[in-house]
């Protein structure tokens, strides 16, 4: 039996650490997306002008900003879960320490995933707010996508947790980072419409979770056509990755 109160107590630990090092927390949570926004949105955006998205011309800045929201969820969710949980499991052994209090290991791992997703959502929420403030996103669309952001972040956090569970050393987290996370970031359509790529490439990109996230993000924030396939694929990812990651981490800790 999972207790929500216990999960909340674990979540509170992460929040306490976040608040304790608030400057570090704010810098690592918010600075990166704004660097991308300045560089790509304002810098590159002024050269490119508009992009064609489902037949309507969208300013590149708005196009890439929606991409950055998705990229923020990917990076914040994955890195916090992958490196963070590896440190907590392997170096601090804090998962093990909490799991002999009335909180169970299963609840500790839910707390981890929910925190990672919360933090990524907070970060993505800040980018969405900037999008609304500079007039690139409608506020209703930005608000409506926010709960989905938490759900998207959960996919990337679960991916990170699974990677942490399977990595023998902290260095080996670099493999999925360079071979999966960075390619997703570069080729799923954060910076350019996926339709610019060869069809085979596009199909491959749809098999990765960032592509459907980008599709839904641009439907809500830029008015692109909503493809129900995107939501279905993401539900499938969550349904597979979350139990897979939790089971792998539990196995690793109990082996």
């Amino acid at each position, binding site marked *: 039996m999972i207790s929500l109160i216990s999960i909340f*107590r674990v979540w509170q630990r992460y929040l*306490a650490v976040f608040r304790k090092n608030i400057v570090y927390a704010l810098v690592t949570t918010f600075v990166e997306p704004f660097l991308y926004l300045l560089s790509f949105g304002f810098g590159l955006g002024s050269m490119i002008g508009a992009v064609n998205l489902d037949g309507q011309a969208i300013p590149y800045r708005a196009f890439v900003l929606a991409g950055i929201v998705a990229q923020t969820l990917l990076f914040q969710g994955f890195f916090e879960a992958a490196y963070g949980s590896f440190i907590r499991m392997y170096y601090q052994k804090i998962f093990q320490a909490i799991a*002999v*209090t009335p909180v169970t290991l299963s609840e500790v791992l839910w707390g981890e995933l929910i925190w990672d997703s919360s933090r990524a959502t907070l970060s993505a929420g800040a980018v969405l707010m900037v999008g609304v403030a500079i007039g690139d996103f409608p506020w209703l669309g930005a608000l409506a996508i926010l709960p989905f952001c938490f759900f998207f972040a959960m996919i990337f956090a679960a991916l990170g947790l699974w990677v942490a569970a399977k990595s023998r050393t902290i260095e080996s987290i670099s493999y999925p980072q360079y071979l999966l996370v960075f390619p997703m970031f570069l080729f799923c359509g954060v910076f350019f419409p996926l339709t610019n790529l060869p069809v085979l490439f596009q199909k491959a990109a749809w098999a990765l979770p960032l592509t459907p996230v980008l599709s839904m993000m641009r439907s809500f924030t830029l008015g692109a056509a909503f493809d129900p396939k995107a939501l279905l694929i993401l539900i499938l990812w969550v349904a597979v990755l979350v139990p897979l990651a939790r089971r792998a981490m539990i196995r690793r800790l109990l082996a």
Partner: protein
Amino acid sequence: MPCPLVVSHLKKTYHRPGRPPIEAVAGVSFEVQAGECFGLLGPNGAGKSTSMKCISGFYEPTEGHVHILGIDVHRDPRSARRQLGVCAQEDSLDTDFDVEDQMTQFAVYYGIPRKEGRRRAEELLGRFDLLDKRTELVESLSGGMRRRLQVARALINQPKVLVLDEPTTGLDPEARRILWDILVQERRRGLAILLSTHYMEEAERLCDRVAIIHQGKILACDSPEHLIQGQIGTEPVEEEIRPGFRHRRAPNLEDVYLKLTGRSLESDSPGEGTQA
């Protein structure tokens, strides 16, 4: 009041793909009374840590039961662990927190209100002589202080049972003695202590009863004095401690262990090596 800790027929077998399974704990039973200090004595690989992890409910045992104040720790970990304090063998301090917050944060996991958590933290840090370190980061503490903090943290929920897995391994003699004094104080308060160790002085000095554990089984269990008398006798033991230098001394638990297993406590005996 039911017995603080009852361990019955505990077994833990590790199944490994393609290799024969290892029986790390092969049917261990004992109980620990209030105010008693009970020791599991054995070298590395004897099954101490696995037993401890089953007792704290972290591992699911293959067979057997563990009851803390009558509550099955595997059936109802939430209630059972409210009465249990655990100090793991490895350093598991939360390095993201300073000394005091380390304690209050742990109080949160037990659902202890913030104010009460702070009060208990202050009282425990005082008792463990760590009060002047309260705002220090864990990283800046010495090994002995870290270990003391880990024991103090295990008492934040005012448990009736304290499980200590090799609490003084790696500590210098001074730090070890300080921790021993603290444990003596705690059992006077009625705490039931289960401790594992491979130091026979530690077992002789602290434990009312010692179980000698070898290859996952308890070979003998009694007070240190009875174990020594029963197995070895009272005659002094002569041994060559340096080449050409023979020394006579009183028999100790190490001799008991050697007699029962044919091995010394220092020997490292991982699962496979001991099957012969």
